[in-house]
């Protein structure tokens, strides 16, 4: 099945009760599939055909607040349009799950893949998972709800798929057992939901001396301290479903590597192919794939990069006026703990292909180059 079909199957497995969504390429087929499931009675869910993404997020925030598991999906400009509502959902500590099919931001118009849309949301209080395969796309929905609904966390989860490469491309996917999934997730039991017996104001104003900073600190601490719980949940998930989800990160051929790249999402597969090829030539190269980006897997990265002679951070998103955000986050994580020369590569914007020869060039550059930031497969093609 395609990545988008896998997501819809994951939503069905999660027994979601309210879906609100607005169409946008390349996310559209997710909500089409969900609408079809509801129409056929395969999925017993309310479906709100909202008029905008801002309303999609606001509607599922409200439905989740009544205590029912809710879902939405978006891409690109739609995701940017719901930015305000993303803060609202996280600030309300609602364990929503949303799929983002990563697509470029215009102008100029582009419907193709890159990660700038979700990178622009990394500070909204949502957990972020970047999928490499369609199997992961499905599993991340189930796992996402499980993690989000953990009473020690209670923060929403965004799971990402690259436009078209995953969303519209078919791969073999094993649909998890419905009964196992039902037992695994259970019914949503929100401790803090709209209560008619003890009426409260949800989101009331808080003055500077009130608990505003404390609430924000609790959100930050909850996410920051969630890494062990997430790792435990991944292990449980893999045992229960006989699945192969990586940890917060996936280390590929890192044991004796001298040089390594850090990637996210579907472009990691081409990187792995290239690494196998270079290994055959005797080059000691490896890959660290970040499955989770929020919370940021700093400890995993520190462990993985020890002893490297060079580390390249591959960035499929763009920040202006500074190096890439992944580079910044990796540098922050390892600062003062591991001394590894780092370079930053900007790749694959607007759906530009990231080819085997591009990865070969990045590894060559890691050994010989001296620029701190390099644009790959740009200009002279």
């Amino acid at each position, binding site marked *: 099945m395609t990545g988008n079909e896998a997501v819809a199957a994951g939503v069905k497995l999660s027994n979601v*009760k*309210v879906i*609100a969504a607005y169409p946008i390429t390349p996310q559209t087929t997710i909500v089409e599939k969900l609408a079809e499931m509801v129409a056929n009675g395969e999925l017993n*869910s*309310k479906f*709100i*055909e*909202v*008029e*905008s993404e*801002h*309303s*999609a997020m*606001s*509607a*599922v*925030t*409200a*439905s*989740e*607040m*009544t*205590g*029912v598991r*809710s879902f939405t999906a978006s891409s690109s400009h739609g995701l940017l349009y719901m930015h*305000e*509502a993303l803060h*609202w959902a996280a600030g309300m500590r609602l364990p929503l799950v949303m799929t983002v099919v990563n697509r470029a931001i215009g102008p100029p118009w582009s419907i193709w893949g890159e990660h700038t849309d979700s990178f622009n949301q990394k500070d909204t209080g949502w957990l972020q998972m970047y999928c490499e395969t369609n199997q992961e796309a499905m599993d991340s929905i189930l796992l996402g709800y499980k993690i989000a609904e953990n009473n020690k966390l209670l923060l929403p989860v965004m799971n990402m798929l690259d436009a078209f490469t995953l969303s519209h491309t078919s791969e073999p996917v094993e649909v998890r057992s419905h009964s196992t999934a039902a037992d695994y997730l259970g019914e949503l039991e929100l401790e803090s939901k*709209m*209560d*008619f017996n003890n*009426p*409260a*104001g*949800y*989101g*009331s*104003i*808080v*003055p500077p001396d*009130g*608990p505003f900073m404390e609430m924000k600190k609790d959100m930050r601490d909850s996410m920051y301290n969630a890494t062990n719980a997430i790792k435990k949940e991944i292990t449980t998930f893999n045992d229960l479903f006989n699945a192969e989800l990586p940890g917060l990160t996936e280390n590929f051929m890192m044991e004796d590597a001298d040089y390594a790249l850090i990637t996210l999402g579907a472009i990691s597969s081409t990187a792995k192919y290239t690494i196998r090829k270079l290994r055959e030539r005797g080059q000691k190269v490896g890959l660290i794939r970040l499955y989770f980006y929020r919370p940021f897997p700093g400890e995993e990265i520190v462990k993985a990069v020890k002893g490297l002679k060079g580390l390249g951070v591959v960035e499929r998103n763009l920040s202006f006026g500074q190096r890439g955000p992944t580079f910044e986050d990796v540098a922050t994580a390892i600062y003062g703990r591991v001394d590894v020369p780092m370079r930053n590569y900007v790749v694959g914007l607007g759906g530009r292909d990231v080819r085997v020869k591009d990865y070969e060039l990045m590894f060559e550059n890691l050994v010989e180059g001296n620029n701190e930031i390099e644009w790959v497969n740009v200009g002279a093609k």
Partner: protein
Amino acid sequence: MPLTIPREEYMEQGHTACAGCGAALSMRYMLKAAGPKTALAIPACCWSVVPGEFPATNLKVPLLYTPFAAAGAAISGLREGLDAQGKEDYNVFAFAGDGGTADIGLQGLSAAMERGHNVIYIMYDNEAYMNTGIQRSGSTPYGAWTTTTPVGMKRDFKKQNKKFVADLMIAQNVPYVATATIGYPEDLERKISIAKSIKGPKFIQILSPCPPGWYHNSADTVKISRLAVESKVFPLYEFKNGKFSLFKPSKTARLTDYLSLQGRFAHLKEDEIKVIEESVNERWSYLLKKEQS
């Protein structure tokens, strides 16, 4: 005549509204008719601060605060979330100001009504962005001074006519649309009760005078809201199952009776008042025709 307003109070003391706040009365009367099985969604507006600081609230019903543009979407989500749990007998109300309804929230309102959720959207209309300090909205009437339509050396005030959101809702064929004001509390209670009895989307626009924003004496809130109806500035009407009916007040008032109590109109010259008079009369004949058609 016996009073028909329920004795039960769902709005308690301790709110932070200004003295003489029309919007506070709107909430109080609305909740009396709504009852305890009610979920509220409140976007950015005066009422996003009036219930009090976290964790306090002066309302006896749960209320969800939402982003400015999100009242329509939030009541949609509340409704479907409650229905998914078999709680169809709970009321879902939006309580939003005119900025959050006529301007930034219009798209969300229109869509929620179009989708047909079983909800009631209350627009408490104080005719400007009052929570941010009296800036003009689409619902501010012609002639009004606001801080973004100030009257200066070269003179200025809001030069555009009021956008009547209730009229837009009729154009959308919303099953029940009404205008009301706190000067006619029994009429307001009746309209909320009718709205509750109809399954589907409902919209009620409540004129809610604002002493600091309209520059009127806080003791005159009820008087001004009655004058608004008697002078035909704010006609009360109902649109139910496609039938439009206009309330004709037995007592009439002059336009200047209404305007002269409010500092926001104090700068108006005779010819400018004439402009208002003409548009009030024009609208009244339009509504009369609508009733007859």
